[in-house]
């Protein structure tokens, strides 16, 4: 489809860019009274109108810009998630003192561009497009990580993030080059045809020794490309940057970083995997004999276990939530390793639930960090007495992260386990057992915070003055945890709509 006609399918992204520029312009006017409110309103409006445009374009399923960019329900679902997450972050940042008044404009501008980058990443079906959007997302997140210019930890985190991201995207690029070399094209569907041709019998007969070489290069190239996605979703071998960056970056951004880019990485990898290596999205017949199920399974087990084990001995709540994020990425990978319809459905469902749980937890961490200035568990001692509402909602978010039934976290985990057990192979049962052991281990370190809040005595008893708006945001985040825990049929219907 030629770029001219395909522009009209592209308008959510266009609206987003429009608002992006508007914010930058508005941020030029300094020091008038309602500046913070105005900027936040514009940012929120931008997100709102984009989502409005997105809903308008429901139902389309076409490749635009010479099948460089896919406008399909899959990408729309995740775009909606990014908008939702962005919206909440804007609400949080509106009153977070961590982001100072005068830099607010830049923060919103870069944040919106980050969301735009993720829009592109999720719906790109061309290797070049993937690389460009991945770089777009990474660079904007380097900048946001180092946003507090005069904070040592923030700049150190940014430095590590830059170099780590650079190397890993370099590796990914290297892998892509081989894919291009082998199949001479950048579109993923075309690569699939090349794969079928390369690894099917007639081709082998003509050049005997080459099948082994071909399999090795394809394998190496796909693992290198996976490195790029793995780094974004913080899967095990590529997760080392995660704790340092989460601790260093400003907390509102850490909240965003722990949700949206992770889900974007997973979604992009899903698209790359399913369109590149499988017949079609419904019957999951593998094109090559690369055992993606086993690879993902091993990665999932490693990610879960390492994430949970490392989180146990953490005292800094942000680092603890970082490792818990790694662990949750492991759970999602477990779902994906099932490589079945239920697996994908579980991924979509869990990403929405994970959004609300993690956001809720980070909102509380931000509030406590602002009021007490500390991030370790001692700051939470006796919170149950000082601020019952905050303590109870934090407990609800943590119990949902553990996966205790009346809350949404359990339903998400239930779908993941259902997908794995439905495969009914010995190997997958083992993975399920590792999964449940991990959720028991996760109980321990989440319960340490809950124990500190409710059971231990507070240092000083007087309540913290928390803005009612922040309490409102917490309450708004609490509602979906309960609703999706009790009656999650609408969300299930939205998620099934996809495939």
């Amino acid at each position: 489809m030629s770029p001219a006609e395909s522009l009209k399918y592209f308008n959510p992204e266009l609206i987003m860019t429009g608002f992006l520029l508007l914010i930058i312009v508005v941020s030029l006017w300094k020091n008038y009274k309602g500046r913070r409110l105005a900027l936040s309103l514009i940012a929120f409006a931008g997100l709102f109108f984009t989502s409005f445009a997105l809903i308008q374009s429901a139902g389309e399923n076409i490749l635009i810009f010479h099948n460089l960019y896919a406008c399909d329900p899959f990408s729309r679902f995740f775009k909606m998630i990014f908008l939702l997450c962005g919206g909440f972050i804007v609400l949080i940042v509106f009153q977070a003192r961590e982001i100072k008044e005068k830099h607010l404009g830049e923060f919103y501008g870069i944040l919106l561009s980050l969301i735009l980058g993720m829009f592109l990443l999720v719906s790109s079906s061309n290797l070049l497009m993937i690389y460009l959007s991945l770089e777009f997302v990474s660079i904007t997140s380097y900048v946001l990580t180092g946003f507090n210019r005069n904070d040592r930890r923030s700049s150190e985190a940014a430095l590590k993030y830059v170099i780590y991201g650079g190397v890993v995207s370099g590796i990914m690029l290297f892998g892509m080059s081989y894919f291009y070399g082998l199949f001479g094209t950048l579109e993923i569907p075309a690569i699939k045809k090349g794969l079928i041709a390369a690894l099917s019998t007639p081709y082998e007969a003509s050049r005997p020794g080459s099948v082994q070489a071909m399999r090795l290069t394809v394998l190496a190239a796909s693992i290198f490309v996976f490195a790029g996605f793995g780094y974004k979703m913080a899967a095990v071998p590529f997760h080392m940057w995660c704790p340092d960056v989460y601790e260093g970056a400003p907390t509102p951004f850490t909240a965003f970083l722990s949700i949206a880019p992770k889900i974007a990485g997973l979604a992009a990898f899903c698209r790359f995997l399913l369109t590149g290596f499988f017949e079609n999205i419904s019957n999951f017949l593998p094109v090559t004999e690369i055992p993606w199920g086993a690879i993902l399974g091993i990665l999932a087990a490693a990610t879960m276990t390492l994430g949970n084990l490392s989180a146990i001995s953490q005292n800094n709540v942000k680092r603890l939530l970082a490792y818990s994020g790694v662990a949750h990425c492991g759970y999602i990978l477990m779902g994906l390793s099932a490589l079945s319809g239920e697996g994908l459905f579980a991924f979509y469902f869990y990403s929405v639930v994970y959004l609300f749980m993690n956001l809720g937890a980070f909102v509380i961490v931000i509030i406590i960090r602002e009021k007490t200035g500390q991030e370790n568990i001692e700051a939470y001692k006796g919170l149950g007495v000082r601020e019952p509402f905050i303590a109870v909602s934090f407990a609800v978010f943590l119990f949902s992260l553990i996966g205790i039934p009346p809350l949404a976290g359990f339903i998400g985990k239930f779908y993941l386990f259902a997908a794995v057990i439905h495969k009914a192979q010995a190997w997958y049962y083992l993975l399920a057992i590792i999964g449940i052991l991990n959720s028991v281990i996760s109980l321990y370190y989440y319960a340490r915070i809950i124990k500190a809040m409710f059971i231990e005595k507070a240092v000083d008893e007087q309540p913290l003055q928390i803005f009612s708006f922040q309490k409102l945001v917490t309450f708004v985040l609490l509602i979906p945890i309960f609703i999706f825990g009790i009656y999650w049929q609408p969300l299930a219907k939205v998620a099934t709509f996809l495939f």
Partner: protein
Amino acid sequence: MSVGLSHFLTIGAVVFSLGLFCVITRRNAIGVLMGVELILNSANINFLAFSHFSSGTIDGHLFALFCIVLAALECAVALAIVLAVFRNFDKVIDMEQLTTLHK
């Protein structure tokens, strides 16, 4: 014998591993950035080689062009951050000492 695809690929691989080696061993932040640039350029070599030899399309060239732009972009951002680190850690950009965030 003339210079074929395999020669370019080997050069690409060599540059890639040199880049990796440079990133891992260098103590100075700027040196590490150089390593990163090397890795990105090795991918460019591959793209150009493949574009010229195996598939006749110009996608490879296109990709290389974009990579160069992005490498520059990344370099700019990275240097800005190194500058911030330089200012915050009172003139230290030695990677070994930047370990305030650990465990």
